C-alpha cells in the first residue's frame, strides 16, 4: 500500500487545502527556497533556539531543525482531532483523580488491572492524597498523533508528565512568518501565540484555594537540560520567575523562593523536573535538582505541583491499550480517536502472536521515551529479533508490541527539492477546573532520512510549522 501523503492524492494531484501552498512554493523555486532555509537556520541559531542531544559527543547543542514547508490541517479535520483530544485528556484526568484521591473505581471495576497500574514506571505511592483541582492533575498534556495509510488519525502515545515541544510550536510560527510571509498571508491560519497566557491562566486556576493572587514559577533542572530553552521561553511568555531547585526552600511545609529582598512565597510550581528528581527527601536523595520538602508542602495543600506527581501511571505504554476503555468507563462515550492496534505480551496468547509476527511488529519498551529502545520488526536483523524475543519472554511487562503504522508523508525540503518524508503530530492540551483546551495545531515532527519512521528530534528528526485553517464559520 502506498503511503498516505498529506499534500497530494494517490493520483499525485494536490489536495484542495494544499493547492495554493504548493503552487506558491513552485513559483518561489528551489534555489530561493534553499536560500530561505538558510535564513531560517540562521534565525534559529542567533536566537539560540537549540536542543541538546545527550549521546552526542560533539557538544551539547544543536540548532533546532525546522523544515520550510508547513503542514496544513483543514478546519473539519481539526474539529475531529480537537474533540478527540479533549475527550481523551478529560478521561485521563478523571482516571488520575480516581486513582490518587478517589475511590479507585476503575480498578475495582476491573477496567484496568490493578497490578498493571501499580507496576507502571511512573506510578507513585507518594501521590496518594496529594490534592489537586479536580480534572487538572495533568495541566499540560502532549498527545502524540499519527496518521495511518488510510489517513485515519490515531493516538500513538500520551505524555502526561513533563511533555516538551510547545516552545518550538511558537518559535516555528514566528520564523515561518518571517521566511514565507506571502504564502502565510494567503491562508487563514489560526494563531498559537496565546499559549503563554492560556498556560498561566490554567496554572493560576490550579493554585491552592487560599492563595489569593497566586505566585507561579517555572522549575527547571537548569541550563544543562535539553529543554532548558523551552523552560526559559515559557517563563518569559508567562512573565513569571524561572527557578532552579536551589532557588527554592521549604519552611514549615510552605515553599519560598530566595530573592534579593528575602523569601517570597510560591503557590504554583510548573515543574519541568521529573518525579524522581523533584524532592530528595522523598525520591532520589542524590538529586541536586530538587527541593527537599516540596512534596510535603504539596501534600499539606500549600503549593500545587503541575503536573501532579504520579501522572506516569496514566501515560505508561502498558496502560495505553486501556485508554479507550477508560474513556467509555468515565464518559460513557465511544472514543473519537482510535489507538494503534497494540498487543500485550504479558497475556500468554498475545505473547505467542507477538513472537510469531515479530518481524512485522514494532516492539517498544514501556519505560523509555524519545524513541529510545524501539525495534521495528521489518528493519531489524535476525540477531536483533532474537534478542527482542528473549527480552519479551524474560520481562513481558516491560514491552508492548504494535502494528507498524506507515506514518503519513509530507513534502519536505531536501537538498532544494520537495520530497515526501514521514511525519507525526504532538498537539498540546491544557486542563484546568474551567475546562480542557487544545492549542490549534501542535508540533509536527518529520523524519528527515528517506523512509525513516522515527521522528524524535533526539534521533535526527526535524519539525514543521503546523497550520490549522480557520473554518468558514470561525
Amino acid at each position, binding site marked *: 500500500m502506498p503511503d498516505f501523503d498529506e499534500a497530494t492524492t494517490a493520483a499525485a494531484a494536490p489536495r484542495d487545502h494544499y493547492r495554493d501552498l504548493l503552487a506558491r512554493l513552485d513559483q518561489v523555486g528551489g534555489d530561493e527556497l534553499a536560500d530561505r532555509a538558510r535564513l531560517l537556520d540562521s534565525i534559529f541559531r542567533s*536566537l539560540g533556539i537549540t536542543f541538546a542531544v545527550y549521546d552526542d559527543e560533539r557538544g551539547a547543542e544543536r540548532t533546532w531543525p525546522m523544515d520550510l514547508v508547513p503542514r496544513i490541517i483543514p478546519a473539519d479535520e481539526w474539529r475531529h482531532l480537537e474533540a478527540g483530544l479533549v475527550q481523551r485528556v478529560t478521561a485521563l484526568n478523571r482516571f488520575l483523580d480516581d486513582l490518587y484521591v478517589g475511590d479507585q473505581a476503575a480498578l475495582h471495576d476491573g477496567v484496568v488491572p490493578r497490578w498493571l497500574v501499580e507496576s507502571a514506571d511512573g506510578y507513585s505511592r507518594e501521590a496518594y492524597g496529594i490534592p489537586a483541582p479536580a480534572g487538572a492533575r495533568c495541566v499540560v498534556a502532549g498527545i502524540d498523533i499519527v496518521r495511518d495509510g488510510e489517513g485515519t488519525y490515531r493516538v500513538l502515545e500520551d505524555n502526561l508528565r513533563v511533555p516538551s515541544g510547545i516552545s518550538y510550536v511558537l518559535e516555528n510560527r514566528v520564523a515561518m512568518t518571517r521566511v514565507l510571509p506571502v504564502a502565510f498571508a494567503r491562508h487563514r491560519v489560526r494563531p498559537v501565540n496565546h499559549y503563554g497566557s492560556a498556560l498561566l491562566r490554567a496554572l493560576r486556576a490550579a493554585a491552592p484555594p487560599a492563595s489569593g493572587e497566586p505566585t507561579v514559577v517555572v522549575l527547571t533542572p537548569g541550563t544543562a537540560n535539553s529543554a*532548558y530553552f523551552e523552560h526559559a521561553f515559557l517563563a518569559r511568555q508567562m512573565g513569571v*520567575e524561572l527557578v532552579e531547585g536551589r532557588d527554592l526552600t521549604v519552611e514549615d511545609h510552605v515553599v519560598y523562593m*530566595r530573592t534579593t529582598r528575602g523569601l517570597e512565597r510560591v503557590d504554583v510550581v510548573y515543574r519541568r523536573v521529573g518525579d524522581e528528581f523533584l524532592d530528595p527527601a522523598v525520591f532520589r536523595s542524590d538529586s541536586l535538582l530538587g527541593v527537599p520538602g516540596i512534596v510535603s508542602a504539596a501534600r499539606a495543600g500549600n503549593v500545587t505541583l503541575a503536573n501532579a506527581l504520579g501522572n506516569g501511571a496514566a501515560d505508561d505504554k502498558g496502560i495505553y491499550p486501556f485508554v479507550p476503555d477508560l474513556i467509555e468507563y468515565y464518559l460513557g462515550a465511544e472514543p473519537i480517536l482510535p489507538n494503534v492496534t497494540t498487543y500485550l505480551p504479558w497475556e500468554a496468547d498475545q505473547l505467542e502472536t507477538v513472537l510469531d509476527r515479530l518481524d512485522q511488529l514494532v516492539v517498544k519498551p514501556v519505560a523509555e521515551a524519545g524513541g529510545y529502545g524501539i525495534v521495528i520488526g521489518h528493519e531489524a536483523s535476525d540477531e536483533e529479533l532474537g534478542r527482542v524475543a528473549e527480552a519479551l519472554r524474560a520481562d513481558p511487562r516491560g514491552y508492548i508490541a504494535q502494528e507498524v503504522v506507515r506514518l503519513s508523508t509530507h513534502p519536505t525540503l531536501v537538498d532544494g527539492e520537495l520530497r515526501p518524508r514521514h511525519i507525526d503530530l504532538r498537539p498540546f492540551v491544557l486542563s484546568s477546573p474551567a475546562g480542557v483546551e487544545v492549542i490549534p495545531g501542535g508540533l509536527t515532527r518529520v523524519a528527515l532520512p528517506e523512509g525513516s519512521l522515527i521522528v524524535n528530534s533526539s534521533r535526527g528528526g526535524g519539525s514543521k510549522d503546523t497550520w490549522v485553517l480557520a473554518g468558514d464559520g470561525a
Partner: protein
Amino acid sequence: MLSRHAEHLFWIGRYVERAEDTARMLDVTYHTLLESPPSEEGPAWRELLEVLHLHEVFDDEPTAAAVSRYLVLDPANPGSVVSAVDRARTNAQAVRDRISTEMWEAINAFFLELQEMDLGTALDRRPYEVFRTIKNRCQAINGVSAQTMPRDDGYRFSVLGLMLERAEMTCRLLAVRYARLTRGSQPMWFHAWVAVLKSVSAFEAYLKEHEAALEPTRVLEFLLLSTTFPRSVLYCLRVAETQLGGLTPGTRSTAQRLLGRVRARCEFADVDEILDSGLDQFLEELQQDIYDVAEAVDAHFFRSGTDLDLRSIEST
C-alpha cells in the same frame, strides 16, 4: 528578583566590560608599539599583563603574538576575551527569561562569531579588525541592553557589575602605568600618555577639556576624578551608587555604606593632595574598597538565604 538571577546579571555586566577593556588595551598597546623602539616591546606587554593581573600566570616570552593570543583566544586563560564572552553567555543563558531577546541575541551572536572566526589567523593578519570587532560587539551588547531592558532590579545589578569592573580596571591601569611613566626619563613620554588615555577611550575627551596639553597630573585627575567622563573612577562609582540605592530604597545596606564612603573619598579628593600623600597607596586602597563593595553586594543580595539553605539540607 531571585538572588541567583541577580548574581548572573551582575556578572554579565562585569564579563562584557572585561572583554571590551581587554580588547581596547590590546589595541592601544599593539598600535603604540608600531611607533616605538623595539626595546619597548617586552616591557609594554608585561605591563599590560600586569594591569590585567595576569603577569604571574603568563609564562611565555611577552611578544605581540603570544600576548594577544593569550588575551584573546586562549580558552585556558579565564581572563581571555573568549572566556569572558563564554561566561557572559553562560550567565545570560541562566537568566534567559530575565533579559530581553535582543540582549540575548547580541550576546549569543557574539559568542557564535568568536567560535566561528579563525581568531589565530585573524590576529596575525589584521589584529585591528579583531580588536575593533570585540569592542563593537561589547558596546552593542551594552547599547541593546540599555535600549531594551526595563529599569528594574535586574538592570540595576547588571549596570552595577559593569561599573565596579570599569572603576577597578581604570584604577589598575593607573596603578601600573602612572608609576612607570613618572619615574626616570621616558623617550616616548608624550606617546605613552596618549596610550594611557586611549586605553580607556579618554584621549578625545581629555583634549576637549584640557586641549593638547598633556600633563601627567591632569591625566591622573581626569581618569580618577572627572565628573563628566563616563570611565573615570568617580563617574563609575557615582553611577554604581545610584543603581545600588535603587535596589534597597529607604534602607542602607553595608554595601551602600561602603560604596558611599569610597565615592565620597573621590568626590572630595584633590589630585595634588593624593600625589603628596602617595598615589600608590591611594590606588591600592581604592581597589580594596571597590573589592569590598563587591563582596558586600554578594553577601547582601546573592547569599542572603544561605542560612536557610544549610538548615534545610541538614534536616534531610
